[in-house]
């Protein structure tokens, strides 16, 4: 069972590496979105500083959402998903492994690059830590919830929109808590409360989402 999970993670990382870009695409998208704003809005430092946590979190959320479409689609089209369903390990384990691989490719790099973006927006140095921390705890939740949506919309007409329509309401609490933590910290109020809520969300999502994903995959492959 563990062997299967490790194998799925390894495979997905290998594929992402082969398609080279795929590792970078989420990252690049994140950087691009975050950098476009100053171009569209103008360069007033105070304005930028006050919108920074929101912009950075929205960019992270979008970049995570965009790579969801391909999370199961390629495996569905070429029959690999059928094989996973007929595999030796329970589908929930495979589902968790795939969500984890998605996070490694689409979530973790954002955490690493976030301080750089914070620098662009001239966020105070003390805030880098809390920004990175909020992303570290929040992005796995995005991957897990997103995978549920991706599994539900597999092979459907209008998969793309449907996916955003389904996933977005689920993402909003994460966004509010994540951006809220940074804003609170910026206002000198700590932000630990929001981080705790994020942590609780992560625990809940990690416990239940894999089974929801598995159920959704079974329904979609019927």
């Amino acid at each position, binding site marked *: 069972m563990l*062997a*299967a999970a490790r*194998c*799925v993670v*390894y*495979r997905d990382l*290998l*594929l992402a590496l*082969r*398609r080279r870009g795929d590792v970078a695409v989420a990252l690049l998208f994140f950087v691009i979105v975050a950098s476009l704003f100053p171009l569209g809005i103008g360069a007033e430092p105070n304005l930028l500083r006050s919108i920074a946590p929101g912009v950075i979190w929205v960019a992270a959320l979008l970049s995570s959402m965009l790579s969801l479409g391909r999370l199961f689609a*390629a495996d569905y*089209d*070429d*029959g*690999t998903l*059928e*094989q*996973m*369903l*007929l*595999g*030796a*390990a*329970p589908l929930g384990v*495979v589902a968790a492994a795939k969500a984890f691989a998605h996070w490694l490719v689409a979530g973790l790099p954002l955490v690493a690059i976030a301080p750089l973006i914070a620098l662009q927006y001239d966020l105070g140095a003390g805030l880098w830590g809390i920004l990175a921390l909020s992303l570290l705890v929040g992005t796995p939740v995005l991957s897990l919830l997103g995978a549920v949506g991706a599994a539900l919309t597999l092979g459907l007409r209008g998969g793309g929109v449907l996916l955003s329509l389904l996933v977005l309401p689920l993402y909003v609490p994460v966004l509010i808590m994540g951006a809220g933590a940074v804003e609170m910290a910026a206002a000198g109020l700590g932000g630990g409360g929001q981080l705790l809520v994020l942590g609780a969300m992560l625990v809940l999502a990690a416990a239940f989402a894999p089974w929801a994903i598995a159920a959704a995959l079974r329904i979609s*492959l*019927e």
Partner: protein
Amino acid sequence: MLEAADLRCERGGRVLFERLSFRLGAGEFLRVSGANGSGKTSLLRVLCGLLTPSRGSVRWKGEPVAALREEYARQLVYLGHAPAVKGDLTAEENLSIACTLAGVAASRDAVKSALARFALPDDVPVRRLSQGQRRRAALARLALSGGVPLWLLDEPFAALDAEGIERLGALLSGHAEKGGAIVFTTHQDPGFAATRTLELA
């Protein structure tokens, strides 16, 4: 070993087959034949549990497969129309990953020799192979699945050249001799006698 009892399958509002029953013992071949769109693929998917029949049930050693789940999955290999092969990975990577997922232990050497058996280069990404070679990359899994009793193969001979057909034929006969059971569909004459034929209308 495998038993289909009173199966009925409906797709897109049309009944494909009804009251279909058969038993397949160790060492037996079943060839499913029929015109395009007659329901061969659907039958195979029902047999491996990917599709729920609208009536009847499939049993493996007496127990309904719906209840067995992973246990049943470990007893079978299903190769469908879709090759389940990643274009960006090499044939070797594809094969060893497929084996791990299926719970079949396969050493590196075993993988290499299975590929050699199908005359496949092992270090070229599959997307750079020809149509027939891609098909071979999927079929190579069979060479490592000797220990898995039930093989369900959807048009395994498609896209293969004469020599490939021969090799695959030898592999299938070998499996049946060792007591495996095989269900396959084909439009081409496989060139060897199936124990039984099931004709779908």
